[in-house]
């Protein structure tokens, strides 16, 4: 083997990043050095073998020198490669670490999500169980929290037919909250389901309406825990037919020569149902009559005196001079009602009479002519009026003044407000009676407060029933308190002197 081949064998394995000439140049340079050294030995007279041996001896290990030179030349690249490898390893390790961390984090998140799902599922199951309990509770009529309440309405008697369309309103007792009000109407079987309610005290209002009017009532009752409430209401119907009534007024004889009139309003009273209707029935029913067809405010018959009704205790007396006397406390307009100087025709609630004492006997109605709605009536106030004008003045033009009055059905004093109207009402004002309230106030008169009811029926009551079953007769007796008050009033000067000539406007 020549020196070149020997050096070639001593070199490290070739690398891809090795400069192409590096290996050759190292070998050529060292080979040149050996050749020069060999020739130098030859020149010194050595035989070739000795010259070669001495040249190699001087040189040392050419393979080791060649490897060192190669390594010195490649050190940078090798180090760079090692750095890259190390960097790559670091990157790989970092990636592995990051992946591991990410995997760990993801696993933790998945674990937490699984726990959250389990918790949510448990909460949902608990809620579902609670809902099932609530549904079961709602379905259980004996649940102490929810109690079914039903109402059945029958007509007139406990075994009467069902009443359809009766409006029911139920609310918590002592509560005006809309949220705590339940409303229903009875069906064709007279039934109304008011749902499930909590135990407690409730108020039930009942309204039954017909073309003739509306009957209403209210009843309080208690819902006990775990109970099932079924209320059977015996409901009267608004009367359709009319009943015959005979009313008798007994004037004291001492006032026979006075030009006095007795003003008597009859009021529809509350009606009690028969006692056999049941213990849980409403105490009484109130009737609100519908206005008769065509009963818009109007004048009936000859001119005055008229009483214009607006509501309870609301009336006007018109004198021939255009004065207006108003009874207060009106709310809703009511038709003009002719005072029953003749006592003819049907008279609706409230029924008022203005009767001259001289014609008191005319208050004794003919049952065939005076028709009353069959219901309960009562009288709570009466007044004695005195005419200021002679009978020569037509009834519609006469003036009156209140000389005495008495009220016994109320615990508080009644102070009517009398307005003197200077100008008679026009047809438009009559059509809209409320406009008359704006009239000028002129004087006040005070009522006598009677310590007892002033009127007595044959059975000692201040109320009576107008019945279809038999003719009704009711006698108005003059209470002693009113008689004494009237005596005093008649001795006093008149508040208004009679006018020689009536003023007609």
């Amino acid at each position, binding site marked *: 083997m020549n020196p070149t081949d020997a050096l070639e064998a001593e070199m490290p394995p070739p690398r891809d990043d090795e400069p192409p000439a590096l290996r050759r*140049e190292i070998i*050529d*340079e*060292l*080979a*040149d*050095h050996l*050749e*020069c*050294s060999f020739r130098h030995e030859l020149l010194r007279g050595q035989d070739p073998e000795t010259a070669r041996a001495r040249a190699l001896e*001087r*040189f*040392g*290990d*050419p393979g*080791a*020198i060649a490897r*060192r*030179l190669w390594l*010195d*030349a490649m050190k940078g690249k090798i180090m760079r490669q090692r750095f890259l490898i190390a960097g790559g390893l670091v990157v790989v390790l970092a990636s592995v670490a990051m992946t591991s961390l990410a995997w760990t984090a993801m696993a933790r998140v998945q674990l937490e999500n699984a726990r959250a799902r389990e918790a949510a599922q448990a909460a949902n199951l608990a809620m579902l169980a609670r809902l099932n309990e609530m549904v079961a509770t709602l379905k259980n009529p004996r649940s102490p929290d929810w109690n079914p309440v039903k109402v059945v309405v029958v007509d007139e008697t406990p075994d009467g037919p069902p009443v359809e369309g009766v409006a029911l309103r139920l609310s918590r007792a002592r509560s005006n909250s809309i949220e705590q009000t339940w409303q229903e109407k009875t069906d064709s079987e007279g039934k109304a389901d008011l749902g499930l309610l909590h135990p407690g005290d409730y108020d039930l209002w009942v309204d039954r309406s017909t073309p003739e009017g509306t009957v209403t009532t209210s009843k309080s009752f208690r819902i006990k825990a775990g109970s099932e409430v079924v209320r059977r209401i015996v409901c009267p119907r608004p009367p359709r037919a009319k009943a015959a009534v005979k009313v008798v007024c007994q004037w004291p004889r001492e006032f026979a020569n006075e030009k006095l009139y007795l003003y008597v309003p009859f009021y529809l009273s509350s009606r009690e149902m028969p006692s056999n209707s049941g213990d849980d029935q409403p105490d009484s029913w109130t009737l609100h009559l519908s206005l008769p067809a065509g009963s818009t405010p109007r004048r009936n018959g000859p001119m005055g005196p008229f009483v214009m009704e607006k509501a309870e205790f609301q009336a006007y007396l018109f004198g021939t001079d255009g004065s207006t006397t108003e009874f207060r406390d009106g709310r809703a307009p009511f038709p003009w009602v002719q005072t029953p100087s003749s006592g003819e025709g049907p008279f609706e609630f409230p029924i008022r009479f203005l009767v001259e004492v001289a014609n008191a006997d005319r208050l004794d109605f003919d049952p065939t002519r005076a028709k009353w709605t069959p219901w309960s009536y009562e009288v709570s106030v009466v007044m004695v009026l005195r005419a200021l004008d002679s009978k020569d003045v037509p009834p519609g033009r006469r003036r009156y003044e209140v000389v005495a009055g008495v009220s016994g059905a109320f615990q508080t004093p009644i102070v009517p407000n009398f307005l003197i109207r200077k100008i008679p009402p026009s047809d438009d004002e009559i059509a809209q009676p409320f406009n008359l309230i704006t009239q000028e106030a002129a004087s006040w008169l005070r009522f006598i407060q009677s310590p007892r009811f002033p009127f007595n029926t044959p059975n000692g009551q201040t109320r009576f029933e107008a019945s279809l079953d038999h003719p009704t007769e009711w006698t108005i007796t003059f209470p002693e308190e009113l008689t004494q008050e009237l005596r005093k009033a008649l001795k006093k000067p008149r508040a208004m002197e009679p006018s020689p000539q009536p003023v007609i406007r």
Partner: protein
Amino acid sequence: MDSQTLGSAVEMMILDVAGRGPTYGYELSRTVAERSEGYFELKEGSLYPALHRLERRKLLKSYWREAEGRRRKYYELTDAGRAELASRKSTWLKFAGAVNGVLGTRRTGLSGV
């Protein structure tokens, strides 16, 4: 003499020989030996790594020529090598003068080398 000082001295002698004209490894070793009167005999294991190191540091540059029927690598001093040689020679002479002064063996003839 430690290896670091010796290596620095070898490099300085290589630069000095190359600074006198293009030369190659075997000739350079022979020149050093002759000029040091046989004191410095550069072994190939030290000579060629030093030559290649100085070349990588741009203090020497090389080229190849045909000689005696084979390729030969010649080295010559670069400008950077020349500056480096001057600096090293100055440092060396100061060091050697100081040492000789202490030892009382100062030789004036070396100042012109």
